[in-house]
């Protein structure tokens, strides 16, 4: 029986078409990811080379004045993307992965963007995660919507019933063939992704695979539920497609729009004005006032006094510091809003598998907004380390050549995610079980 059903399954044109589309787009998606990672990798290599040259150059130009030298010197801090980012590019194409910062006022430098075509960002990426979330459900619908209704419409269903075997079992058999087929296609794509993107067999990768499969089970359960209602093929198609449209296209857009408008981040603009003003106004205000604030922040530097008249680097860097220190309130308000956005997204996403899977994929691949905020915070720490390293040298007016400049290589951000598999899959599994349960209930009542 199975054999015959499998034969019948592979004879249909839809199957070949579905397989062809998924493989083609899958390969395109994986190579998009590959290209993306390659571009990022090239930029990283260039950064390392550039920093070496840049330091060499500047040290040569300003060898007499370490204060002036540090006004020009830039240090790179890099968020090295994981290979899994090739599967879920997430927000990592919008947000820069390399920071080049001077030890000056950081808030004026931290949010600089990379050069990306906004058209491309708007159209979005065709990565594997998109394929899984967006296209796989459609293929599942196309394969399943008429498995029962078609037989009824063609009159073969009566024959199946006459054969005496459990019709339910027959239906399950048909469905399972499709499930196995889709699972194999997905597995092939994951294997391809693993090889092409050289993803190690880590828990991250396995988590990605698990949530993808659960997502696919969810769509099978939904199809099963609709099939068991025993409507005509056309009604089934329209019902399933409408659910797809609502779940994958419309609701995500609605949810995002709601979140964006609920928490507008106007504070970003307030912050950016504030950090400029707070530094610049120090040129015209009482020097000792500025220094008092600076010494309060760094008591260890209070021995470096500043004269009321004339320029000194201690004063200059203290002024720069004020840009960061005095815009703290606006900054924390801004981050607060961003966090609220992320939090609300997460909460709402629990109820909608496509949203949940997208956010989870991004989290696993470290390409989420939260991850970028972590990178920004790590940039602040990196910047602070540089400050603490160079402030005393500048204030002591050390000789430029006394510093071993070769040690100043780009540093890398160590990304970690706090992805919880259980928390993520429980809501989807629950939804899937509810769908399966109600399908069974409906079937056996009939």
């Amino acid at each position: 029986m199975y054999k015959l059903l499998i034969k019948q399954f592979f004879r249909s044109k839809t199957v070949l078409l579905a397989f062809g589309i998924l493989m083609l787009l899958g390969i395109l998606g994986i190579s998009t990811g590959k290209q993306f990672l390659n571009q990022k990798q090239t930029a990283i290599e260039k950064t390392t080379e550039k920093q070496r040259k840049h330091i060499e150059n500047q040290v040569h130009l300003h060898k007499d004045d370490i204060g002036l030298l540090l006004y020009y010197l830039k240090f790179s801090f890099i968020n090295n993307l994981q290979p899994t980012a090739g599967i879920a590019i997430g927000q990592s194409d919008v947000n820069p992965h390399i920071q080049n910062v001077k030890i000056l006022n950081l808030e004026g430098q931290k949010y600089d963007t990379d050069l990306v075509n906004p058209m491309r960002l708007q159209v979005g990426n065709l990565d594997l995660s998109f394929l899984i979330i967006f296209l796989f459900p459609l293929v599942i619908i196309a394969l399943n919507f008429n498995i029962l209704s078609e037989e009824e419409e063609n009159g073969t269903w009566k024959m199946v019933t006459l054969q005496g075997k459990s019709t339910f079992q027959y239906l399950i058999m048909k469905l399972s063939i499709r499930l196995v087929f889709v699972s194999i296609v997905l597995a092939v794509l994951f294997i391809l992704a693993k090889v092409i993107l050289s993803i190690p067999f880590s828990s991250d990768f396995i988590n990605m695979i698990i949530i993808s499969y659960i997502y696919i089970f969810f769509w099978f359960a939904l199809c099963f539920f609709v099939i068991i209602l025993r409507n005509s093929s056309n009604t089934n198609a329209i019902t399933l497609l409408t659910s797809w449209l609502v779940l994958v296209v419309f609701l995500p857009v609605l949810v995002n729009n709601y979140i964006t408008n609920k928490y507008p981040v106007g504070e970003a603009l307030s912050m950016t004005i504030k950090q400029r003003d707070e530094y610049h106004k120090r040129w015209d205000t009482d020097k000792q006032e500025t220094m008092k604030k600076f010494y309060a922040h760094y008591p260890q530097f209070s021995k470096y006094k500043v004269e009321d008249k004339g320029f000194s680097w201690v004063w200059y860097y203290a002024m720069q510091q004020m840009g960061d220190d005095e815009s703290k309130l606006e900054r924390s308000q801004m981050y607060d809003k961003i966090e609220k956005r992320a939090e609300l997204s997460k909460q709402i996403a629990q109820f909608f598998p496509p949203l949940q899977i997208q956010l989870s994929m991004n989290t696993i691949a470290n390409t989420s907004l939260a991850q970028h905020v972590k990178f920004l915070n790590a940039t602040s720490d990196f910047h602070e380390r540089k400050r603490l390293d160079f402030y005393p040298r500048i204030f002591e007016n050390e000789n430029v050549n006394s510093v071993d400049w070769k040690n100043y290589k780009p540093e890398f951000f160590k990304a970690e995610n706090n992805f919880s598999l259980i928390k993520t899959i429980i809501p989807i599994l629950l939804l899937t079980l509810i769908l399966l349960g109600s399908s069974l209930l409906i079937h056996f009542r009939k």
Partner: protein
Amino acid sequence: MKKSVVILIAKQFFKKTFNSKGLMALLTIFLLVLIYVTVDGWNAFEANHHTIEHHQDKARKSWEDNPDKHPHRMAHFGTFAFRTQHPLRIFDSGIESYTGNSIFLEAHRQNTANFSEASLSTGLVRFGDLNIAMLLQLILPLIIFFIGYAAISSEKESGTLKIYYTQGVTMKELLLGKSLGLFLIVALFFIPALLALWSIALVDDFHLENAAVLVRIILISICYIIFYAILCSLTIIISGRSANSNKALLSLLGGWLLFFVIIPKTSQVVGNSIYPNLSKIEFRAEVEEEVSKKGDSHDPNDPHFNKLRDSILKVYNVTDVKDLPFNYSGFLMSKGEEQTALIYNQEQDKLIKSYKNQNSITNGLVIFNPYLAIKNLSMSLSGTDFTTYVGFLNQTEKYRYKQSQYMNELQMKFISNKATTSEGKVHVVGQEYWKSAPKFEYQFLSVSKTIKNQLFAFVSLFVWFIVSCIIMIKFSNRFKII
């Protein structure tokens, strides 16, 4: 072909569909969503407008409040340009979520436009933006397909098509009539949406030339009407060509997936891989290399600028720059600014060119894909497209350059040649000069430029319309009746 028959068929289709059980529910849901989206769009736009204006004023005020200062300090104090939105973004927000909202303009440094909405959003932003155009471009076509897929195929299945035929109704009349009927049904959906669009012109008080907005709105309306005419006829044609309704629905949905999702994404991906653009690090390296080739005014030993100095000394017949009648470092900076701005602009133009090349695949495909045509037209006419954004960036750079040079001129004129530092209250220019520096006024791209940019998309839409008419009229004999 009898006109009356066409109209009769259209009427019949309209009545039958209008009275079907699902339509009212669908229409009600659509209208409710439309109202939500419009009101929400208005609120978001006004909130954004308010935020931008508030911050622009705040930034300007703190600029004007600066005390007497050394002009170079002012040059680095700099200005913020915050991007104002075109009111038509309520209708179609185009690429606005991905374009920077704030750009810091200072002397001899070109900064990036930061804080795009997407950079402050979670991954959900990538599913798309909610606005009227999204409903019109993605959702309504699907509704058209759902309503119209069985228009002819069901008649075929029930055998009524033969009856039409025996009564002397030709396929041509049937195709045209059904298309017209479908179009009238669809009008129930898109007319309210276009009314929402027109409401933007009526209530607009955002200091824009209303005439320009009106022209845009009229053009947008025309484009969408043609777009729906195309979709309705295609739906009917496919319904007529399919053996049964099932196949008609599948072909239409497959077409939707291909034309509305896969082609747009793939073409952009392909464009990006054929024409990769420089990363920021490479871009900066190119600029720096050019600058060091042509001369770096920050390098005291730079041959180019030393030559310039010597020639100036010669002209004024002095031996030391301190004896010049103007502030030499101001002069040096103005020359340096001129040089680097030129180099930067060349590189920036190259970058924009590579973006344009990336987009060219998509822009070329508008002839094959009416969805891409309407998408491009809609966002261009709504002032939310790529070209408009490039216009914004160019204007900010122009403004930045002017302002830096203004400060350099002030320095040359008023600052003593013996000044060594910008610190303290000695070498300063009066604060009245800050007020007299012009504000940044962002100008949207003119309608005529937009039309010129999108001429190809206009033409494509017309071509599709004509082709679908020709198929219905000239090739109607290719449609099978049984």
